[in-house]
């Protein structure tokens, strides 16, 4: 089994979807607990991908491909997981790309990496209006709200959402984090966000720090 687990790890790290699905199928056929497959192969593989990204061995394409394979394997495992999913959630995060912005690459990567790290993620998609963010905060009562903006013209919407949270008396009930290519630490401070992350791995660290979880 160890051999197959290692093969699966390598396939994810290499972004090899075909091999990853083949090995996952074999592991299931051998009766290996899907939860174990996640803990022993998927999560460590994505951790290695993250380390490679931080060492600049990997860049965005390598991370994206690994994340895609991770998602595909998770989808494949889902029917075998039963009620176990979400049991160990470290916290709930609502995430979305702000109004007027249809970019989802960064947001999707953050969502995937947060899931890998054990958070429950509710992804509202792209072009999300402030009203929808507010509705989601009221409905899901998340610990963290993530606002993504890729365009210089739409980052202002992050401020609009935060202002709206204040106006509705919800600001103290949720931590707000912001990200996206034009966004900076200064901008996060300026608009009263609780934190800024430059990439998906920083986002995970930031959420953990804000919620005081490991």
């Amino acid at each position, binding site marked *: 089994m160890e051999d197959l687990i290692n093969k699966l790890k390598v396939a994810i790290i290499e972004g090899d979807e075909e091999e990853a699905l083949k090995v996952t199928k074999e592991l299931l056929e051998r009766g290996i607990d899907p939860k174990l497959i996640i803990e022993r192969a998927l999560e460590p593989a994505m951790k290695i991908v993250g380390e490679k990204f931080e060492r*600049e061995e*990997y*860049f*965005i394409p*390598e991370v994206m491909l690994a994340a895609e394979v991770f998602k595909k394997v998770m989808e494949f495992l889902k029917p075998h997981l039963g009620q176990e999913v979400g049991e160990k959630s470290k916290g709930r995060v609502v995430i979305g790309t702000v109004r007027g912005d249809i970019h*989802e*690459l960064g947001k999707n990567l953050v969502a995937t990496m947060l899931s890998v790290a054990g958070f429950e993620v509710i992804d509202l998609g792209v072009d999300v209006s402030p009203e929808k963010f507010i509705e989601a905060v009221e409905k899901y009562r998340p610990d963290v709200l993530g606002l993504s903006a890729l365009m210089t013209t739409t980052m202002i919407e992050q401020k609009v959402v935060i202002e709206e949270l204040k106006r509705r008396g919800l600001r103290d009930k949720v931590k707000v984090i912001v990200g996206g290519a034009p966004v900076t630490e*200064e*901008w996060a401070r300026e608009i009263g966000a609780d934190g800024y992350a430059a990439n998906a791995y920083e986002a995970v660290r930031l959420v953990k720090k804000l919620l005081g979880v490991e």
Partner: protein
Amino acid sequence: MYTTHVGSFPLDFTRDNVLRVFHDMINIGIDYPPYPQLRNFIKIFLDPLVDIHVLKLVNSKYVINISLSELKNLPLPAVRLEEAEIVASIVKKERICVEAIRGCVTGPFTLASEIQISERETRGLFTSALSSKDFVLKYMTRIVREFVTYLHDVLGFKFIVIDEPVLSVIVGSRRILFDYTIEEISKCLDEVLQGVELAGVHVCGRVPPLLKDVLLSTRYVKVLDHEFKDNPKNLTVYTKDELEKYDKFISFGCVSSRKPVIESVEEIMDVVKRGIDTFGSRLLMIKPDCGFRGLAGFFENKEKAYEVAIEKLRRIVEVKRRLHV
């Protein structure tokens, strides 16, 4: 050493603003001023494709509106950029003398990344037109080439720069998304820029290792335009020897486009000196890291943001003056 700017400013698009920005750049002493980009750098190149029904707009997303098997027979759009024409006419009328006007054109890969193949299933970049190599390499390349020819041959802008921010996203350290090869991307950039007097490529963000290979292997690209202020690690990407070997020059980002703080002349000077130490005489131009459009969000009105943008440019020119290179 010369000065230039990537293109955008935080003002609304009006004829008066185009003239104002351009005159301000001339008065400051920018050697290669761009035509001011006051509109979205995707929209100005893709809207003409909506006009000829090659694309359609669905919920603000550009979606392909034709069969991809018809690529050879697809029409080309009417190629016009109002802001560029305003600049060309004023240069002629006022006999403005600069090294050259910088003509910014968004590249085929970045444009394709903003187009969805179908309106049914959209998964961002993965379902974008980037996934159709033929569409990018055969059609979008032709479109971009049309804009380059128009700016260079018709309007007389002799410094053409292809803006390709998406290349730092799809090109990595070992892989290129959608299975593009180094040769395909560099050939595409060459096709677009062949015959241009001074040709450049602007890619913001961190420059990945394979992108360096792509850009160095191009034949007609002379100027590599990157961020160095907010991405100081880019200083380790190229060596002076490599730039000499492949006959490339650096257009060096030395002030932040994302931060509203105006860097002091001394601070900019330090950044530029590090660039000179690394690239020597291959450091051809200094400029802001990227466009200034995003500064608008930091201020209550765009006028304030514009003042910051202009002051940053003014200080870049001052650094050039003090360095005497």
